[in-house]
């Protein structure tokens, strides 16, 4: 068929990729079972780290579920993501306490420094920027988390310095 001869290489690449083999096994294990979609997506995300479009299509085809439904489920549950994740997740709290104490300005600065919008990952793959629910540290508002670290009483001016720690650590780690 026309499309098959269009010169797409992903087919060949995928064949060598263990992750796709694993996905095939997961789908085979669940195919035909009612309510299979969510567990399969779960496992798929464990395997790939996120749910890229081609994985979504494989799941849709493999479970015989419409792609629109797969996409609907992925976007409905916040635990699923179709974006690749950075090494560090930055979570800025926009709960009431943080908001009142100026979290919005901190978020703006984060967007500027990391260079991406909410939900996106920086070009170097280091940071993924996310808005989180209250982390229970309202006394420290406004609060953000980077990986397992928590930062409080933030001002926009703090942002660059904090991020730099991770950038430097990454550089040194690599060197």
């Amino acid at each position: 068929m026309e499309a098959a001869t269009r010169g797409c290489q992903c087919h060949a690449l995928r064949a060598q990729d263990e992750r796709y083999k694993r996905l095939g096994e997961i789908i085979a294990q669940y195919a035909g079972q009612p309510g299979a979609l969510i567990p399969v997506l779960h496992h798929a995300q464990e395997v790939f780290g996120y749910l890229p479009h081609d994985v979504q299509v494989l799941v849709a085809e493999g479970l015989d579920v419409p792609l629109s439904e797969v996409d609907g489920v992925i976007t409905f549950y916040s635990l699923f993501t179709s974006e690749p994740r950075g090494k560090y997740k930055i979570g800025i709290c926009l709960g009431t306490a943080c908001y009142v104490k100026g979290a919005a300005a901190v978020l703006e600065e984060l967007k500027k420094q990391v260079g991406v919008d909410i939900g996106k990952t920086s070009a170097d793959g280091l940071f993924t920027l996310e808005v989180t629910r209250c982390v229970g540290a309202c006394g420290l508002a406004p609060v953000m988390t980077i990986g397992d670290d928590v930062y409080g009483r933030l001002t926009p001016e703090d942002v660059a310095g904090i991020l730099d720690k991770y950038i430097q650590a990454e550089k040194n780690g690599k060197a």
Partner: protein
Amino acid sequence: MVLVKKNAHLMPLVGTRTNEQKGAKEMVTLTIDGQKVTVPANSTVLEAAEAAGIHIPTLCYLKDVSQTGSCRVCVVEIGGRLQASCVFPVSEGMEVKTNTPLVRESRRTTVELMLSNHPQDCLTCLRNQNCELQKLSHELNIREVRFEGARSSFPLDTSSPAIARDPNKCILCRRCISVCSEIQGVNILAARERGFETVVSPAWQEQLANTACTNCGQCVLVCPVGALVEKDDTEKVWKALADPDTHVVVQTAPAVRVTLGEEFGLEPGTIVTGKMVTALRRLGFDAVFDTDFTADLTIIEEANELLQRLENGGKLPMITSCSPGWIKFIEHQFPAYLDHLSTCKSPQQMFGALAKTYYPEKAGLDPGKIVTVSIMPCTAKKFEAERPEMQSSGYQDVDIVLTVREFARMIKEAGIDFINLADGEYDAPMGISTGAGVIFGATGGVMEAALRTAYEVVTEESLDKLDFTEVRGLEGIKEASVNLNGTVLKVAVAHGLGNARKLMELIQQGKAEYHFIEIMACPGGCIGGGGQPIPTNTDIRRQRMAGIYAADKDMPLRKSHENPAIKVLYDEFLREPLGEKSHELLHTHYVPRLKYSEVEHPEAKEETKRGTAS
């Protein structure tokens, strides 16, 4: 007798929610607003109220289509609690109150919340005066919106030549999702994200034009508001009509004559052919022709193609190709089966090709100055006209396609008093047609028209009974067999893409022992097309079908091969069916398409299999 086998009932048209289908005989008695009512035990409270003549407002609920219980406009009080009557089952002795302060306040709040996140664009909205949200807010006597909320601002999707989406007007009733997945089985639309971010859209927020959307427009027919509408092309037509250098030719599809009247308050199924012709002349069209003419022509070409396939061992079953929604469906979903399709263009496209070759030759016109407009029951026809294959005259064969709704808007804009128009007559030669052309407008009609001709051509006997009732009606899949000089021709008819998929799966499994299949994308055929007046529902479809068969009965000629203008067309121009000219102008080819955008699916399938096998 011609027909030797009764039609089989394989799948109902829509849903499974009618009482007969639930197979219930048990009855229960309940009280609604102090009134006793006895209904089948499997009824909903809403159905019981209807039976008692009590009106409950609804919004997301749509009979035969959608019953998601999501909007909560239909709440009633049962045992002191608010329940959504459209999904709440009745029970013996139940007490229901439909008009209490609690009920009224709840309904009002629900609708006010909707309005607080709704663009108040009524004055310029395509659905102005035919909008269920507008009607509801009037009905509930809402005079102010007490809430001020954030407004969604989703981008408009105008990528498709047929359908425009404005998610900001969407009230998340999910009717379009039901129709697209459950009835059409195309599964383009779904709800994505959650809460305030929720939007009904194709997967990945893809633009409609980049998906496997068939342009059938069934979602437009069920949308209660202006969130899904036809692409409006009326301005293009006004422009062509105002240009003194152009010769503007119009064709009217078979199904339009029994539905256009609804836009002017007439009963569904009222035949308004004559008024429609007069309206077109008043609007300034230079020639008023009929798609029925090329429907007759389609029958000649298609019947010959079928006989040729039968004789030469060609690909069978042969499947009709008149319905552009169906064509796009098979191209995306069953690309390996395109050689089953008849190569005949649809009547609209045959017309377009002839209107820029045969017609100007005969009338002494410059084909480059001809603009062809079609009035169609269909949104997918807009896409069809723009297909690159459809330029065999050397120009785009059909320039502009209007749905019935757009056409009605032009008539109103021009101030034409449609109801009181005198009957007009189509122009010759491309306005001359038979009853066989008319019945193209209803499911089973192409089959019936083809059988009328095939039978007489093969047996050289004249048919005593023209009505092939086995292929008529709203059953999802219909079957019949016809004895053609000892050869039993097995045929099937499907309408609605969900039913089409069933038939295709039979073909895939090698279980479809048919020679000839008619498929129409829309439930009921073109009388239920995505470009028809809103509302379009099962009852209205039935009325329109009755109109189609009445129009057929009225015609002096009812067999395509008896159309004198078609005979002249072959004598003067085409020479013979399936001849060189026919192939050039009247036949086409199809293109395999992807099931999803971006990712090629057969390959994905292979991958999965490989993973599975190891």
